[in-house]
């Protein structure tokens, strides 16, 4: 699976980057992205309950099937307003 990963706010700080093109066989559903992030920084394990995933600008469930070319965003708790 080849996707474009976008990170924001505290998630970008934890990962050390904001945007990455990734191609990995273990990315099938949206939730897999959190496993990938935890492999980069174990702090992501604690963050998992707070993170939502959006695919192509819409929130999705963790079992949402990914497709090649998807833009996958990790959304920490929002604080606009």
């Amino acid at each position: 699976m080849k996707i474009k990963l976008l990170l924001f706010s505290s998630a970008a700080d934890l990962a050390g980057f904001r945007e990455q093109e990734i191609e990995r066989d273990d990315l099938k559903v949206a939730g897999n992205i959190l496993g990938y992030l935890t492999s980069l920084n174990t702090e992501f394990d604690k963050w998992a309950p707070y993170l939502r995933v959006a695919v192509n600008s819409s929130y999705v469930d963790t079992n949402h099937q990914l497709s090649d070319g998807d833009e996958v965003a990790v959304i920490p708790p929002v604080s606009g307003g």
Partner: protein
Amino acid sequence: MVKIISEPIQIAGVISLVSSPQAGALDVFLGVTRADSQGREVLYLEYETYEQMALREMTRLETEAREKFKLLGSAMVHRIGRVDIGEASVAIAVSSAHRNEAFAACRFLIDQLKKTVPIWKREFFADGSIEWSGESPQKRTEQVR
């Protein structure tokens, strides 16, 4: 009408976006940077966004509000980048024939914006620390203590 901008919000312009000859009531909400955040002195805020998705979410919320309430017009403008004390980070304006709908819709839109629109606030404190606002594992731990 939804917008994300980096300049100060011009409130008169936001209001003009929702005016209508049928409108009898306009409600406008402004979220403003406070000098105080839970007892700590704030110097200024910085907002970042996932812009494409934020605009999409804001548009979805407007559509939902127009279905739930009898609105004649609505506008949501969020500012990003640095926002100083006393400056507005968000403006929401709605118009309707009568005031019940205007108040209810304005409240609905700001409440929902704060729940779902991908915008993040970073607080720059007077003591030099810088923190993302919003829920986090650290804050949860502090609360449990």
